[in-house]
Structures are given as C-alpha cells and as structure tokens.
C-alpha cells in the first residue's frame, strides 16, 4: 500500500530547504521499501513551519514541521508515514489554530492541491465560476462582481466592478485583460503564493473577466524576481490550453480567450498600472497621464481591464458562490477577505486570510506571536514601502480601507512588515526617499528630484545641522511630493517619511542628544 505525502514546492518553502527534504524523504522511503506518492503542493502559508510535510493518514492530513534534513530518518523511525507521534508532529493540518481561525476564500485551495494538476483543480470546485459565467450575459457578470463589493486588491482598492463596467461599455474591436503580477512591495507575497500554489484560479478569473467585458487576449505581467511563479504559470497555462480551458473554444462554449505571461525587468514603478502598460508595449516603464483611463485607452490604446492577481483570483469564487456570499464577510465598505501577509521581524510569519475588520494587534500577536527576535514590536509598516509606519499606540485600528486611512495608514495589499525596538526610524525614513530616488521613472520633477533632495535633507536633519530649518524643509518637500507627483510613488513616499518623523521624532535627534550628553 502506498502512502501519499505532501511537500510544498512554494518558493519560500524551497528557500528553507524543501527540495533537499523531499529528496531525502524519497531516498529514505526507497531504502526502507515504503512506497510513497509525493504531491508537491503549494504552501499553507505557515512559513515558520516550513518545510511542512503532510501525510495522508486514515483520519486525514497530518502535518510535521519544520522538517530539516537531519530529521528525516527519525521521522521514518517514528512511523510518520502512518501519522505517528514525533516531536515535529503538529496534528491534523486543518486543526493548527493559525490556519483554523482563518477565513480562506481566495486561498481555499492553496496548499491543499497539486497546483499543476487541472484534475485536482476541477475536483476542488475549479472552473465552477467560469461555467456559471459562460451562461450569463456580460452585464450580469459585471453586476455580480460589482455587487460582491470586491475592490482592487493591489492596494488602490478601486471597485473592480466599476472598472469592468467601463471597459464593457467602451466599444472596440480589441480589448485586453491585464494582470498586474508585479508584486514589488516588500512584505507582500500573496500574489506569488497564488501563482505558485493555485495558478488555475488566476487563469479562470482572467477568463471570466474576458467574458465579462468582451476581451479575447490576456497578459500576466509578472516580475522577473519570481522565477518559480513563472514556471508554474507557464505550466498551468499549457495545461489549460490542452484541456480547452483557454483558447478558441473555452470549455466548448465557442468563446475565445488567450493568455500569455510577460516578464518585467526589475522596475518597481511597473507595478503602477500605466507604467506597466508602457512596459508591456515594450517601452520604458514611464507612467502615463490620466485621463484617459486604461479602461478606455489602455494597452496599445485599447480598452483594458487591469487588476491585481488577488482581485482576479477572487472572481471565480464570487461567480460560483454568488455576490451575497462574498459580501457577508468584512465591514463597512471593505467587503470580503484580504490575505494579510505577516513579514519582517515576526515570530510566526505567513499568510492570514481574514475578513476585513481584524485589528493590527490581533494579526501581530494572536497570529504573529510577537517579534521574531523576542524584543518589543516598535513599528509596523503596513501596505508596502509607500505605507505609513504605525506605532504600537495605534495597533488597535481595524483593517478596513476607510477606518485605517483615518489613522493615516493604508491597508494596501495587506502586507505587514514588523520592526522591533532596535529599528532606527530615521534610517527607515531615509531609505524611503532613497528607494523613491532609485525607482522613480523620472517623468515628474517632484519625484525625480525631490526624492534625492529628501535623502540629503534627512541626512542634514539627523546630523543636527540647523535641525528646525531642515525639518521644516522636509515637511515642505513632502507636501510638494504629495500634491505635485503624477503617481503614487512620489505621491505616497512622504507617508513612511512623515509617519516616522511624527511618531518617532526622537530617532531624528540622536546626534543632537549624543552631542549634548
């Protein structure tokens, strides 16, 4: 009798040794004459437990982790292939509290299935949303997405249905569906986990978008820093074509949808939608003036839906279970769930999909378990490198687009980067300006020049050279960046800078305090 075990192929799991563990388990099984059937699944997103090996026992899947190379013989000795006791045994995977307390909607299949098996996908509710969509009028698909309350998960939180409606209503012989998979924000990896762990759901979501607006060509613009996701997407797209989930006759409907992956080339700014479109057209990734909106004049001048990976990946569920089902989750105008990503100096780092309304404190302590270093958490940067640094006094704020904005924060893509009390917030503020200078597309002056001046001003301020004057200058510069920049890079760089300055002013005075002492 053979035993089924699961060893993730997710890049983070691999970064912690999953490949060598998989090889060692296979070798050890052979040596002992145990027949194994190994599935390389996506990650459950409990990264402190990776490599997390699961065994299909009589009672269901049992988890062991983190499994290191040297643990493998001992696991076999203990009889882990039958789900037996071992110090690394975590019990039934679904019962691990971190996972059990989540609301996994978009990530329902990630970690559960073989990401590259279309049969596995279909056996776990795959393509049900697409089948429903094929029987619906385009306007009804758009209405379902609008009614669900889904807002752009890339960070800007623009209602997805409104965007689709504009494209549907714009006449053109050729329209495009573009997926923004340029997940460049530090502290975010949910797009990557979907692309590696359940790529078919992204393909399905984009196909539904094509049906909804009358587009026949889709592009996934993927950052080149994600080679594992690149391989997974290409393999999944090939499988989808082979089984007519993509191509000239989607699921026998006679409708066409083609899909292709394009690689970015290490430019953060290409995560901005118009810059991304320029890049897809083969140009420098300089941002475009808006209007016209991409929904009216997008890729190659044609009406284009451009959404983030998570937005598309959530659409199949909405079309399968209905707008009402999805809308039940969340609070206020933030409906549904968001896959939060616990990153940086955090003990239990990973992915936590929760309905909107969960507080920062719950995420950091109930799930995250505090800092990795064991020191007090001093600041959390929420929403990527352009998000504000949130001090401990504000950890009770609910994660809701509008509520979080009231404290000067940005939920964004749901990435949380945790810092302990050894962080130098003046250095973080300086880094924000340095990053903006390195990544500015150069089109507008406040961003291109202001960021470099920002680095200099912070240096002068920290060095204590006419500090009051420098601080006034820095605030003035931030004002110019906020209101004078063409896009969010220049427009939001002041957010980490000013939040650091406002909440942690003492870090900007260190040189002066040192000199006075």
């Amino acid at each position, binding site marked *: 009798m053979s035993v089924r075990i699961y060893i993730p192929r997710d890049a983070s799991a691999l970064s912690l040794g999953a490949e060598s563990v998989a090889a060692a388990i296979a070798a050890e099984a052979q040596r002992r004459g145990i027949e194994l059937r190994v599935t390389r699944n996506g990650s459950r997103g409990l990264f402190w437990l990776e490599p997390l090996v699961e065994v299909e026992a009589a009672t269901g899947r049992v988890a062991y982790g983190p499994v290191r190379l040297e643990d493998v013989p001992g696991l076999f000795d203990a009889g882990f292939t039958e789900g037996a006791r071992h110090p690394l045994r975590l019990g039934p995977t679904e019962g691990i509290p971190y996972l059990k307390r989540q609301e996994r909607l978009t990530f329902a299949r990630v970690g559960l299935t073989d990401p590259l098996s279309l049969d596995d996908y279909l056996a776990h509710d795959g393509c049900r949303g697409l089948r429903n969509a094929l029987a619906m009028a385009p306007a009804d698909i758009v209405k379902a997405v609008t009614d669900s309350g889904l807002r752009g998960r890339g960070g800007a939180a623009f209602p997805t249905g409104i965007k689709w409606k504009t494209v549907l209503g714009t006449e053109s012989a050729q329209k495009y569906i573009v997926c923004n998979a340029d997940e460049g924000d530090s502290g975010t990896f949910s797009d990557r986990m979907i692309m590696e762990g359940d790529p078919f759901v992204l393909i399905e979501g984009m196909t539904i978008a094509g049906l909804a607006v009358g587009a026949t060509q889709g592009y996934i613009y993927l950052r080149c820093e994600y080679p594992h996701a690149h391989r997974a997407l290409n393999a999944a797209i090939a499988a989808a074509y082979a089984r007519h989930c993509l191509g000239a006759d989607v699921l026998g409907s006679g409708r066409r949808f083609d899909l292709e992956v394009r690689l970015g*080339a290490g430019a953060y700014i290409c995560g901005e939608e118009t810059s991304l479109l320029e890049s897809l057209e083969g140009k420098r990734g300089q941002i475009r003036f808006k209007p016209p909106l991409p929904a009216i004049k997008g890729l190659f001048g044609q009406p284009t839906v451009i959404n983030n990976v998570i937005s598309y990946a959530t659409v199949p569920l909405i079309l399968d279970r209905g707008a009402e089902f999805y809308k039940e989750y969340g609070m206020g105008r933030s409906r549904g769930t968001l896959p939060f990503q616990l990153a940086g100096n955090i003990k239990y780092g990973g992915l936590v999909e929760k309905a909107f309304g969960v507080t920062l404190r719950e995420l950091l302590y109930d799930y995250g378990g505090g800092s990795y270093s064991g020191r007090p958490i001093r600041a959390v940067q929420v929403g990527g490198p352009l998000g504000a640094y949130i001090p401990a006094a504000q950890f009770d704020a609910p994660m809701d687009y509008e509520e979080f904005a009231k404290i000067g924060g940005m939920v964004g893509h749901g990435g949380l980067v945790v810092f302990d009390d050894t962080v130098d917030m003046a250095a973080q503020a300086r880094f924000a300006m340095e990053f903006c200078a390195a990544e500015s597309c150069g089109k507008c002056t406040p961003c291109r020049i202001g960021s470099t001046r920002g680095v200099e001003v912070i240096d002068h301020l920290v060095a204590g050279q006419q500090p009051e004057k420098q601080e006034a200058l820095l605030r003035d510069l931030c004002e110019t960046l906020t209101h004078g920049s063409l896009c969010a890079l220049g427009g939001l760089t002041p957010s980490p800078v000013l939040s650091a300055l406002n909440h942690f002013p003492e870090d900007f005075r260190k040189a002066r305090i040192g000199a006075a002492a």
Partner: protein
Amino acid sequence: MKRQLQEQAIRPMPAARPLAEGQRAEVMEVIERLRALPGALLPILHGVQDALGYVPPGAVALIAAELNLTRAEVHGVVTFYHYFRTTRPGRQVLQLCRAEACQALGAAALERHAKQRLGVDFHGTTADGRYTLEPVYCLGNCACGPSLMLGQELHGRVSAERFDALVGAAS
C-alpha cells in the same frame, strides 16, 4: 557644462563594437523567434540576456535595426530596467534583498558581510569571476528573511555563516 558639451562633440560616444559572429547568431535567433509578438522589445531583451548573460552594446544596434527603432530607444529601455545588464556577469549572479522586510531581520549586516566576503561592492564581480553581487528590492520571501537569490535558487533566513556556506559550496 559648455566645456563638457564641446568635449563630447569632439569625442562622440564610440560606436559600439559589433557583435562577435557567434553572439550575433544567437541574438538574431532570439529576434526572429520573438519579433512578431506585440510589444516584442522586452521579451527580446530577456531572450538575449538569457542566452548571453547580458545585453552587449552591439546587440542594441542590431535589435534597433531589426525592430525599426532607434538605438537611443533600445538603449533607453535597456538602461531603464535594473535587471538588464550591459556587461558580462560572473558565473552566477547573487541577488541580495535590500527591502524593508529583510532590513527588519538584519539585511544591512548581511550586506556588509557579503561585500566583505566577496570583496566587491554592488554590481561588482569577484576577482575569480564566480559571482556578481546585485541588490534586489524584494524576492517575495518576506516572512523568512533575510533572503538572497543565487542563480535561480531562493534562500531564506540567511545568516553570515549560511552565506559563507552557500558561496563556498556553489561554483
């Protein structure tokens, strides 16, 4: 400024050295394979860098001529993107993450260690030609930092000791 411009006029940018025959054939193969794609320039540049390890200046002129673009346009694209390189890298490119999540776990210290251990700054290639060190802003491994990518292999929780073991073992 004026003097600089005058000097430039006297000594204009030297014409790029034409490609060696082998390289030219490889670049042409990439161009022929991808030229029909809408927005073909980025895929072609990726193809050239995959094949040669970098985009030599001579390839810029060839790509420009074949795609009916100016050399300036192609040069502008090559230099806009951090990933494309115009000089030959070492046998392996080592990308060290500099982004916030890795900073929170000591990326700056790892960066100092890496530079000292390899004896190069960012963008530099080690004397033995084994490694080229590059900064990268996020590898998407933010719960397991500090991270680096060696070739196409991602590594997390990289301590100084682990770094030494990695660069000592790989070749």
